[in-house]
C-alpha cells in the first residue's frame, strides 16, 4: 500500500505492507534508526514518536494508519544544530545512561509538557509511566523534565 506522511517536516511517500508497524517503517523504510524497539508488548515506550503532535508508541500504530499524518521522531527535535530544550535538560541533568530508552523518553517528555506545562514531580512520574528505563532509576529523568519545564516557563515569560 502506498502511504504519504510528513516526517520531521519532510514529505515521505512509501510502499508498505499492510502489517508493517509504524516503528518498523520509520526504522527500516525511512532509515531513521533513532527510534528504538525495546519490547514486543507495547510496554517499554522506546519507540515513542509524536504523531500529529501527540506522543504515540509507534509499535502500536500500523504504518498505514499514519497515512497523511505529521510525524516527529527524535531526529526531528533539534533545530539548526541546537538540541531541543528537553534534550539539553536531559544532558544537563544526566537523565540518560545507555541512551536506548532516551529517544522515546524525550519524545514522551516533550509531549507531556505540551499537555502539562508545569508539572509536579508526581505528574512527571505518572506522565512517563509508559516509558521504561533500566539505568537511571528515573530520578534524573524527572529532574530533567522539571528543569525543561522551568526553561519553557522562562522562554514564555
Amino acid at each position, binding site marked *: 500500500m502506498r502511504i504519504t506522511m510528513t516526517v520531521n517536516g519532510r514529505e515521505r511517500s512509501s510502499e508498505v505492507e499492510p502489517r508493517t508497524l509504524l516503528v518498523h517503517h520509520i526504522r527500516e523504510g525511512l532509515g531513521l534508526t533513532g527510534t*528504538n524497539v525495546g519490547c514486543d*508488548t507495547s510496554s517499554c515506550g522506546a519507540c515513542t514518536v509524536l504523531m500529529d503532535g501527540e506522543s504515540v508508541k509507534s509499535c502500536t500504530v500500523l504504518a498505514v494508519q499514519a497515512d497523511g499524518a505529521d510525524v516527529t521522531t527524535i531526529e526531528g527535535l533539534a533545530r539548526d544544530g541546537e538540541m531541543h530544550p528537553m534534550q539539553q535538560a536531559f544532558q*544537563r541533568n544526566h537523565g540518560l*545512561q*545507555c541512551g536506548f530508552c532516551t*529517544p522515546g523518553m524525550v519524545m514522551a517528555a516533550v509531549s507531556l509538557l505540551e499537555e502539562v506545562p508545569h508539572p509536579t514531580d508526581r505528574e512527571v512520574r505518572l506522565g512517563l509511566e509508559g516509558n*521504561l528505563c533500566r539505568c537511571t532509576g528515573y530520578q534524573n529523568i524527572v529532574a530533567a523534565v522539571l528543569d525543561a519545564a522551568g526553561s519553557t516557563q522562562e522562554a514564555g515569560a
Partner: protein
Amino acid sequence: MTPATTTETDVPTGLEPGGTDQPPDEPAGPVVGTRRERREDPALLTGEARFTDDLQIPGALHLAVVRSPFAHARITRVDVSPALAMPGVVAAFTGEDLQGEWAAPMPCAWPVTEDMKSPPHLPLAVGKTCYAGDGVAVVLAESNEAARDAIDAVDVEYEPLPAVTDLAAAISDEVVIHEDLGTNTSYRWELHLDDDAVERAFADAAHVVRERYIQQRLLPMAMEPRACAAVPQPFGGDITLYSATQIPHILKIMTAVTLGFPEHQLRVVAPSVGGGFGSKLNVYAEELLVTALARKLHQPIRWVEERTENALGTIHGRGQIQDIELAADADGRVTAVRVDLTADMGAYLQLVTPGIPLLGAFLYCGVYDVPAFSFGCTGVFTTMTPTDAYRGAGRPEATYAIERAMDALADEVGVDPAEIRRRNYIGADRFPYTAVTGLVYDSGNYEAAAAKALDLAGYDDLRAEQQRRRAEGGPKHLGIGISSYFEMCGLAPSRVLASLNYSAGGWEAATVRMLPTGKVQVVTGATPHGQGHETSWSMIVADKLGVPPDDVDVLHSDTALSPLGMDTYGSRSLVVGGVAIDMACDRVVDKARRIAAHQLEAAAEDLEFRGGEFSVRGSPDRSVPLAAIAFAAFTAHDLPDGEEPNLEAHVTYDPPNFSWPFGTHVCVVEVDEETGGVEVRKYVAVDDCGNQINPLIVEGQVHGGIVQGLAQALFEGVVYDADGNLVTSNLTDYLVPSAPDVPSLTLDHTVTPSPTNALGVKGIGEAGTIGSTPAVMNAIVDALRPLGVDEVLMPASPLNVWNAIQRAQSRPDPERTTTSATAGDTNADAGGAS
C-alpha cells in the same frame, strides 16, 4: 593553550599545535571531581548513536531461531523443508546440520572445582532440549519478518520429559537432566578456614540465628535487546562480528576457540550498547551462529532479539537458596558466620555461571569483625534458562543474607538494628583489615557512613514515630530498614582469579597517545555501555596532561582499535581501566620530560610539569608546553639520543588488590496489613566509593543501582510453571518498575580513598543494587514484626506480604524458630522463583 616555546629546528608544516578552535581560556584547574556533563549524550539524545540493530548491512540475511517450547524434551525429528518453501527464505539448518561448525562447545570460563560437571552445550541443541527457549534450528531469510514467519513452519517433533524447576527436586536426581553426567549437581565448592573455630563459636554462643532466604531469579532486562551481525570480508577470509556486548575482547577469543576460527582474522565491535547489567557479559549461541553461518555462506548474517526471546534466551540472575547462621555472644557481637547455598545454574553453564555464588562467598561476614566463617555452595542444574552475572553478581546475594540476618540477630538479642551493627562494625582504625577469609579490605569507615545515613533519615525520630504508632494501633505499619554493605570491586588481581580457577586474568590495558597537534588519543580496554567512560577517562587525562577534556578522544569497544582488554563488568572499569590510563599518562609525561629537558638544556629532574607545561624549577621563563613536545616527538628532528619518536605509552595494569566500596542505606516504608501494599516513604543512601572522578555520573550509577535492587525487593521475580514454561516472558508479566513506582532518593557520600591505586578510587557500578535490596526487605519485616512476621518472600508483592501476615498469625507459637520459607513454599508464594 598556545604552542609557545618550540625549538628552532621546527619547520612550518601546518601541523603545529595551537592553531585549532579550542576555547582559548578554558580554565586549567582540575576537572576531576567536577560534575561534568557527558560527552556521550548528544549522539544518544538526537538519535545519531548507532546500536547494533541500527547498522545498515547491505546483503545481510536475517537469522531467526526456532526455540523449544518444552523445558525438557527429546528432539525426535526436525524438518526444515516447509520453512525453505516460505517466501524470502534462503536457508535453514538444524542443530545436527551445524554440528560440524563447532570446534568446541560453548565456553564456560570458570570451572570452579576440578570435578565440576558441565554438559556439552552447543549453540543449537542436538537430540535433546533442556530449557524452554533452547534453540533447535535456524532460518535465514531476506528480511527479519520472513525469517520470523518461517520459524513457525519448521516441523519439530518433541518427546516431552519432566521439567525440573525446583532446587530440592533437582538435587534429588529423581529426574537427571543431563544423563551422561549422572546427576544434576554440577559442583560442591567449600571454603574451610578453621572449622573447629566455627564449631566452637556456635557451641559457646549466647545467641544463634538460623535463617533461610530465597533469592528469586531475576531478568536483567537491559532496555536494548541483544543483537549481532557477522560480516565476512569477500575475499580475505576475515570476519567482523558486531554485537551488543559488554565484552568484545573476551567474545573475540571465545568465538575463535568455539568456531576454530583464526583469532587474528576476527574483529569484534560493540557499537552503542543499550545497557548490560551482566546480561551482555556472555558468549551467546546467536553470536556464534551468525559468525559460523557468515563463514559457511560467505554472506553477512544478522540477528536481533525480541523481548520474549530476551526473557527466554538471555541469562537470568540470582536464583539461590541461602542458609545462613550467626553465632553471637551475649552482647550480640558476632562470633561466627556459617553459610550454605544452593545455586540454580539453569540448564547449562554459560560463561561464568558457576562462579557467580563464589563472587559473593567472601562477603558473607559483611562489614563486621567476624573471627570465624565457613561457606559451602552446591551448584545444581534445572530445566530453566541458564543463570549468570546480573548486576552485583553474587555480592547482592551475600549482602542480602548477612544484612537480613543482622536484623534477625538484633531481634533475637533485643537491641536496635542500628545498635547491633555498631557493635559489630570493623573499626575505622583497623584498616587495612585482614578478614578471616584472608582478603585485605583496603580502607573504610563503616560507622561514619552509617551515622551519616541514620542522621539524614532522621532515624531517632522515625523510631519514636514507630513506637507511638504501634501504641496507637492501626492497619498501617511504619518500617525502617538499614543495610550496611560493602563490595569487592576492581575485578581482579590475576593471581586471586587463578586461585579461584578462573580461566583469565583481571588486568586492563590502556594506551595514551599525544597526537602531533597536541590532541590526545586514549585507547581503553574497558567497554562502556552506559557508564560514560569517554567523559570520565577524558577528565582523568585532562588533569594529568594539562589539556582540556574536549581535546581527549577515547577509543574503545572495537578490537581493531583496542586490541587488548578485559572489558566492563564487576565495577572494574575505573578501578582497573581508569588506573591504567592514569599510569599511561605518567609514562607519557616521563618521556616528554626527557625530551623537554633536552630542549631546555636542563636536567630532567630539574623540570616540573604543571598545567600542561614543563618549566625549569626556579626559572619559570624557561618552559615548554607538552603540546610542543608532542610535535617535536612527531617530527623526531631533534630528540635525545636513543629516544624513540612519538609520544605514547601503553600500560597493562594488574591490580594488587580488590577495592572495597561501602555505605549504609536506610529505607522507610509504610505497609498496609489489610492489603499487603508497601509504600516506600523515604530512601537514604550514603555511599563511599573513594575519590569520585565525576559526581554526576556517580550519582546516576547509585540511583539506577538502588532502583534495580529495590525492584528485586518489591516487584521482580521470574515465574516458571511446573512444566517449566516461563510465565514472566515479557514486560507486561515481568514488572520492571516505571517512574511512578519508585521513590525519590536522597543521596550523600563519604570519601575514604583507596590506598591501593593512585586515583584513590573504588568503583560504584553495583553499590546501589547491593545495598538496597536488604534495606527494603528489612524495612518491610521491621514494619510487620509486631504481627509476628519474621520473613517475607521477595518480591514483596501485596500477595506475598499478605501471605506472610496470614502465615504469622495462623502460627500457634510465634516463637522465633527462624526457619523461613522452604523452596517449596517459595514456589507456592512467589510462583516458583526457585
